[in-house]
């Protein structure tokens, strides 16, 4: 059947005539003209006339729905003529529950207002973060002296996750980074005939900072993300609520074991990463520069200074705390749907990496001042 859709205005009355099949109607332009005509103040009455309406779908329903909204808003009379009963019922259904969404109003105000809102949010966020750090610190010390709800088994699971399960990836990446450092260094140093210094370059680079940073980034992506996802899912499943109402502090139960695990393992992983990086450098030394491995290794060991080594380990320790706090923070403050678990995970990783870089800067400046 031919589809027909047109309207005319006579006096105060707008009449819309519809006939034929009305499936997937998409003449936006005509619809917009209809709406603006209907909004006109001179029009006081809207009549929709169905003439042998065949099949119809929601594309027709939205037009009637919009028209009726316009009519209600501007107190015009609205009338449906010759429509099938089920269609009228559908439209009435759409208007039967007049419940506005009960969400707080999020309309944006002027520029100054937005700056104000943003500022208050920032202050609140800093406050929240600070409180979380304080609470996790408290819980950490309670756990250390054995006066918290932390279960040994949770700690051992967390430890397992950041030790041998993390070793392969940490080893691989660190080896590659050592190799890259050595390769880039070798190309440059060769021009001065100073390729023998590749060993010390790699060793100092890895022990002082690269070992810790690479381990930190891997662990942020691996462990920090999994902390946020696990705790976030527990939040969604009301498990965190269940803990609280059992009188168990989620800090003790969820955060402490994870934090302790990272504080113990990050320095160890950093050491391992240093070692693997030096091996990676050795690979380049032997294959590309023709230095015997024994010789290369001696040079490397000679280049280790206690200061650099300890600063590197200290970085690892700090990164461990940063990763644990970021992961757990975003997990605990995760919203209550699956979507928010995803965004919590992302935020945990990104913020962990940002804060690691910030901490590196701070530590570097402190070392400079202390002349280490």
């Amino acid at each position: 059947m031919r589809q027909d859709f047109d309207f005319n205005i006579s006096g105060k009355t707008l009449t819309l005539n519809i006939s034929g099949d009305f499936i997937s109607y998409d003449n936006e332009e005509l619809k917009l003209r209809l709406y603006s005509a209907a909004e006109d103040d001179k029009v006081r009455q809207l009549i929709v006339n169905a003439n042998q309406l065949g099949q119809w779908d929601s594309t027709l329903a939205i037009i009637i729905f919009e028209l009726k909204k316009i009519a209600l808003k501007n107190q015009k009379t609205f009338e449906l003529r010759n429509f099938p009963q089920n269609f009228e019922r559908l439209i009435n259904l759409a208007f039967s529950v007049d419940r506005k969404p009960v969400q707080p109003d999020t309309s944006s105000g002027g520029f100054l207002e937005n700056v104000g809102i943003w500022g208050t949010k920032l202050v609140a966020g800093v406050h929240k973060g600070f409180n979380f750090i304080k609470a996790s610190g408290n819980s950490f010390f309670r756990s250390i002296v054995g006066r918290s709800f932390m279960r040994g088994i949770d700690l051992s699971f967390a430890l397992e996750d950041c030790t041998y399960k993390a070793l392969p990836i940490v080893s691989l990446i660190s080896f590659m980074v050592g190799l890259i450092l050595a390769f880039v260094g070798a190309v440059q140093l060769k021009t001065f005939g100073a390729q023998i210094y590749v060993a010390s370059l790699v060793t100092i680079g890895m022990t002082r900072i690269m070992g810790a940073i690479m381990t930190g980034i891997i662990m942020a992506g691996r462990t920090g993300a999994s902390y946020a996802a696990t705790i976030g899912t527990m939040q969604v499943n009301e498990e965190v609520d269940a803990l609280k109402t059992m009188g168990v502090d989620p800090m003790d139960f969820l955060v402490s074991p994870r934090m302790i695990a990272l504080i113990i393992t990050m320095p160890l992983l950093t050491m391992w990463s240093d070692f693997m990086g030096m091996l990676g450098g050795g690979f380049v030394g032997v294959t590309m520069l023709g230095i015997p491995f024994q010789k290369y290794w001696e040079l490397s060991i000679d280049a280790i200074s206690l200061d650099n080594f300890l600063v590197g380990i200290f970085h690892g320790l700090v990164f461990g705390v940063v990763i644990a706090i970021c992961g757990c923070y975003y997990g605990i403050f995760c919203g209550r749907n699956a979507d928010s678990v995803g965004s919590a995970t992302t935020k945990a990783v990104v913020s962990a990496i940002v804060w690691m870089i910030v901490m590196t800067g701070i530590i570097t400046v402190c070392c400079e001042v202390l002349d280490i």
Partner: protein
Amino acid sequence: MSTEVQIEAKNLTIGYGDYILMKDLNFSINKGDIFIIMGGSGCGKSSLLRVLTGLVQPLKGSVFVDGANFTSASPTAKDKIMQKNGILYQSGALFSSMTLGENIAMPLQLYTKYPTSQIKELVSLKLALVGLAGFEDYYPSEISGGMKKRAGLARALALDPEIVYFDEPSAGLDPVSSKLLDDLILDINHSLGTTIVIVTHELSSIFAVGNNSIFLDGASKSILARGNPNDLLHNPPNDTIFEFLTRGEGKNAQKTE
């Protein structure tokens, strides 16, 4: 039945930030009651339950449990009161990293000094009570939604609580399981004298188990009616409640009469 008041809400205003859900609620729940909290979707029933169980602070007013102010209690006093509560969450809220047995043992390990063997016996008793005998070693991911709920109830009952809170116990259950859960609620209430607070929309449950109730109204942010649900049905104080309790069919039924 005794009429000793167990839970009392005084001028309770609940909401989030500037966003007020309910204003100045006053009601009391007697010991041994099965108390129903009903109301339209999104009006703040779950939020009220969170306030009653101490998860969220009210914006104003206080909750008294056995005469003690729960809202302004010190953390240790609060923990004491919380131990009187068993809560069944909508999803069961079992700890997914633990087996059912470990889940139910957890509150026992936390708050009792029972030897391990006794805890084990208690766990198998509680599981048997909810019809899950022998499921100790299953993980929550290995059982169905209805079973999770029952296991959650077993955990809620672990410490023989004085009050058990339920958030939509029958949501997502088939009619038979839902009926079984209702029977279980009645059994617990009769045999142990436990006070029971239920948030639910399920009309059959409301009439089957409830002996007192409040009806929350989102529009006026207040209690629209209170009392025994069966009395409310026969003597509805206003249309909204009548419609709710008759699934909106009441009006039509009257018209055709």
